[in-house]
C-alpha cells in the first residue's frame, strides 16, 4: 500500500510527534516501503488461526486486590521536568 503525505501527517498527529510539512513526503515514502515489506503477510493462509495472546501457555498470576505500595510522593516527582506543590505541572489543558 502506498502512503500519501496526508496519511503520514495523520499518523504523526496520532503518535503525537511533530513532523514539519517538508519532511512529510520522505516519511510517507518510508512508510510505504515498510508497509510493502509487511504486506508479504497477506500470502499466509491464517484461516482458523487464533491471534497469539501469550507466547508461553501460562495463566497470569493473580494477587489480592489490596494496596501494596504508596507514600512516595517525593520519589515519584523526583524526575519530573516541572513539579509544583506535590503535583506534575503541565501547560494549560482547558481553555
Amino acid at each position, binding site marked *: 500500500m502506498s502512503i500519501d503525505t496526508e496519511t503520514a501527517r495523520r499518523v504523526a498527529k496520532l503518535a503525537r510527534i511533530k513532523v514539519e510539512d517538508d519532511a512529510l513526503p520522505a516519511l510517507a515514502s518510508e512508510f510505504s516501503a515498510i508497509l510493502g515489506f509487511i504486506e508479504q503477510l497477506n500470502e499466509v493462509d491464517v484461516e482458523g488461526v487464533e491471534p497469539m495472546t501469550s507466547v*508461553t501457555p501460562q495463566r497470569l498470576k493473580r494477587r489480592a486486590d489490596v494496596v501494596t505500595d504508596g507514600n512516595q510522593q517525593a520519589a515519584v516527582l523526583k*524526575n519530573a521536568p516541572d513539579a509544583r506543590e506535590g503535583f506534575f505541572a503541565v501547560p494549560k489543558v482547558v481553555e
Partner: protein
Amino acid sequence: MSDLTKLTIAQARDAMRKGETTSAEITSACLTAIEGADALGAFVHHTPEIATAQAAAADTRIKAGDAPDMCGIPLGIKDLFCTKGVPSQAASRILEGFKPEYESTITSQLFDAGAVMLGKLNMDEFAMGSSNETSVYGNAVNPWKRAGDDTALTPGGSSGGSASAVAADLCLAATGTDTGGSIRQPAAFTGITGLKPTYGRVSRWGIVAFASSLDQAGPMTKDVRDAAIMLTAMAGHDPLDSTSADIPVPDFEAALTGDIRGKTIGIPKEYRMEGMPAEIEKLWEDGTAMLKDAGAKIVDISLPHTKYALPAYYVIAPAEASSNLARYDGVRFGHRAKLAHGDGITEMYEKTRAEGFGPEVQRRVMVGTYVLSAGFYDAYYNRARRVRALIKQDFDRVFADGVDAILTPATPSAAFGLGEMTNADPIQMYLNDVFTVTVNLAGLPGIAVPTGQNAQGLPMGLQLIGRPWEEGDLLNVAYSLEQSAGFVAKPAKWW
C-alpha cells in the same frame, strides 16, 4: 596475576575463592581498562565509586566463605536497565537526566549476589537498531577490525556497547536485552557468547520496555560456562512481572557435561537463504559436522513460516513500542521541549517527542501507530499475531518430533562498517535479524556461540535454539560446540 580483565567469570570466581586475587584488584584493572577505551564508545556512564564500594563488600563476603558465584564479578550494565540513582536513559535524548528511584529486578538480583557494576553500556536508542548507530551517545565500536583495513566496524546492536566491552576485556561480562536478536547478533559480531532465555525466564521489571511480548534480558559473556553462571543469577520468578514464570531455576552450570551423545539436532532448510555468503554457509556446515562428531544425530527439518517472521516482527514490535513509548510525554520524567507562547499540552507532547526521539524510534512509533489505527488493526496487527502463532507451531512440531536443539547461523554476515548502511533503506538493516527474530516470536531460548573467523579475520557465530525452559540442555549443546570449535581469537588492541 596478570591480565585480570581477561578472566572469565568462572576463572575469577575460583581465583578469588582461593585467595589468589580479590574483587578490588579485578575491579580496579577493569576501571583502568575502561578509562583507556573511550574510542570504543562502550561505557557511557561510569560508576567507579559504586564499583569500588561493591568490590570491597564482595571481598568481605568471599573471605567469610559461601559467597555466591557472581560475588565480586565486575559487570557492565546495558543502559536499558534502570539502576537506582544512576543515569538510565535507553540511549535516548528523551530520558536525558533521568535517574531512577528504583533498581531493576535483574540488577538487584545480580548486586544481591555480590556482582559489581562498572557503569552503563551503550546501545541503540530504546534497543531499536542492529548497529548501535541510533544511540544518542554516538556509536559503539567493534574492537575487531578486518585484517589490513582500518575501517571502524559496528559491534552490532542493539546491545552493541555490551558486546564491545566484553570482547575488549573492559569487564568480565555484561547484561544485554534481546527483542529480535539484540543479544545474539552483537555477540556473533564480536566473538563472544550471548544468550536470550525463554520468554518469562527472567524478570522484565525495571528494564525500559520496547516490545513487551518479545523483550527478554540475558547474559553476554566470554564463554558458555559464564553464560550458565550468570543466567542462574539473573533468572527467577518476580511478582513485579506478571509474565515471569514461577518455575524453579536449576543450576545451569551443572548442566555442562559436554556430553551430547544421542541428542537430536535439527537443521532447518528455510534458513539456507538465497545469496547467503559462502563463508556463513561453510561455518554452518562445519558446526553441523562438529555436533555430529560429538555424537549428536543430525536431522533436516522444516520451519515453513520462517520467511514471514521478519514482516510479522515489524508489525508486532512497532505496535507494542508505540504503546510502550506513549509514556514519554514530557510530564513525569526526562526531556520536555521548550514551549512557545500559547503552546498547550498537545504542542508540548508533539515537540517533546519530536526532539526527544531519534529518527528510527520515531519511524517505529509511527508505523506502530498506523498498524494499530482504526481500520488497519485487523489487516496488520491481528494478521501478524496469527502468523506469529503459526511460527510458534512450526517449532512446536519439530520439538514434538524429537528435536532437542536447532542449529542455524547467528547472522547473515560478519560485522559491517559503521556508516555502511546509512543510505540503505531501513529494511536492509532489519534483515540482520533474519535468523534470530523467529526465536523471539516463538518465545524460545537461543544462544550465539563464536565458532570461526572469516577470510578477513572477523569472528562469526552460530545460533542454537532450544526447547522452552530447557536452557540447561541448550547450554550443554552450546558447550559441546564451543569445545569442538575451539574459538580463542581475540581482537588486537588498537584503542
